[in-house]
């Protein structure tokens, strides 16, 4: 017998012991450093009063109370690895995850909406960071379609390519469920709510539809009261894990507003393959307004490198089926706006699905030396003009709008503003700088050898896609 025999024989160690050694190791590592990606978005649509058709018929109340509460699906908790009932717990968890999944292709018709809205909303001549949640906006528009009729509704159905309100409802429910995860390990909730002024009677069946289809809760109170504003801000803060508190504090409700519709996404997940804290270095990012120094995380892994005529891209998986974050780097000389309006780039973003076989032509499996700046970006935009540019005009105009499914008390109701606040943070605790030599960046040509340096040291696009391939968030990082 020799050392080789012994080494080979060690290959017979039980799988469960090998797994245990891995889990125990990972547990310790998580205690030492956490690498987390956290994202939140809110979209609030303020709907302002028009002319009362009926005298005030509701008493003014000074409390804010829930009139419809949406109930979320129950999910089995993510199993505790050391529990004696691990296998049973795992089975229950796995079943509840499968129950949320939808048929492949259930949202294929939304690609045009996602593409046109990403282009409209993210393109800008300014050098600010921007981020947009297409799913968030989709759900908000779906709800607006529920509370409007005639041409006001039709414009939304047209944009979302739904042939009827029923088709939209079915798809919205499917989409909501596909992106719902609340198992203690991953949190992803598309929460919605309606804040209604108690001077006005709202159509109860419409509120029921919103609770059943969009899981939206409704609250009623005196719009400008401190209590109502506090309740509203607390709801937004809770739904976004406190990530957007600074923005939330500035959101108020005024007397003219009769209803506010709020949708939010809160998403938190860990990288499937973590960055080593000790590899993080301080380096230069070439922003449009000049060079800045920021922390770059580094990781070398075996992965797929993609390229197009004007970009190169890599994806980084999020743990626990949490989806993938894609980093899309424009080639030298190509602006972010060029990329947004490049058909091939948008096609790339729209076809990223973990559940489909990836047939992107320009891809190669190799060792990727990824250098990614740590960033925590906040984006604040009013989407009113963008939505109008996308063809939704009637609801913004008190003369042409039709909000009859919402209330019969008044006419001339219109949407006044559509603020969309997003924050995306890639977080790491603690930094130890070590020397790192940045190498030349690969352009759009196929990578030459077996490895590539993918250095995101100038403005880039990112997209976070769910396992279905739908874009949860898309953004532009100009300043990490």
């Amino acid at each position, binding site marked *: 017998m*020799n050392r080789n025999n012994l080494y080979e024989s060690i290959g017979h*160690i039980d799988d*469960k012991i090998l797994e245990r050694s891995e889990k125990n190791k990972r547990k310790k590592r998580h205690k030492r450093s956490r690498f987390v990606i956290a994202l939140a978005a809110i979209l609030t649509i303020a709907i302002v009063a028009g002319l009362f058709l009926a005298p005030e018929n509701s008493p003014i109340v000074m409390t804010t109370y829930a009139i419809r509460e949406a109930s979320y699906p129950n999910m089995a908790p993510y199993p505790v690895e050391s529990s004696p009932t691990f296998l049973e717990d795992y089975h229950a968890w796995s079943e509840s995850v499968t129950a949320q999944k939808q048929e492949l292709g259930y949202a294929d018709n939304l690609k045009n909406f996602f593409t046109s809205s990403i282009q409209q909303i993210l393109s800008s001549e300014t050098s600010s960071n921007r981020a947009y949640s297409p799913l968030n906006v989709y759900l908000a528009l779906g709800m607006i379609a529920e509370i409007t009729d005639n041409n006001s509704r039709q414009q939304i159905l047209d944009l979302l390519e739904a042939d009827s309100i029923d088709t939209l409802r079915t798809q919205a429910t499917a989409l909501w469920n596909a992106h719902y995860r609340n198992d203690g390990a991953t949190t992803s909730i598309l929460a919605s709510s309606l804040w209604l002024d108690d001077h006005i009677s709202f159509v109860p069946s419409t509120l029921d539809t919103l609770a059943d289809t969009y899981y939206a809760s409704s609250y009623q109170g005196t719009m400008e009261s401190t209590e109502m504003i506090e309740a509203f801000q607390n709801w937004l803060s809770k739904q976004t894990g406190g990530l957007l508190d600074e923005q939330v504090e500035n959101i108020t409700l005024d007397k003219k507003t009769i209803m506010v519709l709020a949708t939010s996404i809160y998403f938190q997940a860990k990288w499937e393959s973590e960055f080593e804290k000790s590899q993080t270095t301080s380096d230069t990012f070439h922003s449009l307004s000049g060079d800045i120094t920021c922390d770059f995380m580094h990781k070398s892994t075996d992965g797929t490198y993609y390229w197009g005529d004007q970009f190169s891209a890599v994806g980084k998986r999020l743990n626990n089926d949490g989806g993938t974050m894609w980093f899309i780097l424009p080639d030298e000389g190509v602006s972010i706006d060029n990329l947004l309006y490049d058909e091939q780039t948008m096609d790339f973003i729209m076809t990223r699905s973990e559940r489909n076989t990836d047939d992107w032509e320009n891809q190669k499996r190799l060792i990727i030396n990824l250098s990614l700046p740590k960033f925590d970006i906040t984006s604040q935009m009013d989407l009113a003009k963008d939505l109008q540019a996308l063809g939704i005009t009637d609801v913004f105009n008190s003369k042409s709008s039709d909000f009859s499914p919402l209330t019969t008390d008044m006419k001339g109701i219109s949407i006044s503003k559509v603020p969309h606040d997003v924050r995306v943070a890639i977080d790491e605790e603690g930094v130890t700088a070590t020397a790192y030599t940045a190498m030349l960046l690969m352009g759009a040509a196929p990578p030459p050898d077996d490895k590539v340096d993918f250095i995101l040291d100038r403005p880039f696009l990112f997209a976070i896609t769910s396992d279905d391939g739908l874009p949860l968030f898309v953004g532009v990082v100009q300043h990490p």
Partner: protein
Amino acid sequence: MDDQQIVELYWQRNPDAIEQSRKKYGSYCFSVANNILGNCEDSEECVNDTWLHAWNGIPPHKPKVLRMFLAKIARNMAFNRFKLRSAKKRGSGEITSVLDELSECLVNESDVESELIAQELGICIQQFVRNLPTREGDIFSRRYFFTEPISDIAKGYGLTVNHTMVILSRTRNKLKKHLIKEGYIHE
């Protein structure tokens, strides 16, 4: 995609099984192979061989733990490659130190390698590791199955390098006694 679905794809002889395995475990198998070979090109080839062996092995196998099933194949592929190339002194992985440490468990090494010995010895080692306390078993597995550097193991379990070396040394002594007791080596 979860592991059972991937295994199901192998059973259906659906080539997507390989693509899904590659997506989920490509970098994992790469690191298993690269710990042994310390050479990206060779490790990458081992990973590609791993999918071929998995394709040939499932069915008849229906692995309960796909990750470890693939890890074992990748480890075998990499070690075979190491043996073939060691004559050419190629590669500088952790494996050389690991093998030197393992030789401490043996009294006299024979050049004769036998698959039969490896099989029987495998069961003997399996029993030995089962009876180790959790932490010793884990650290032994990380070092001698996964071929990880001692510093990485120490970091992973929140220990000092010195402490980890002491634990490994004690476990090797225990293994030597076990091998003597089972009649594989003679004092």
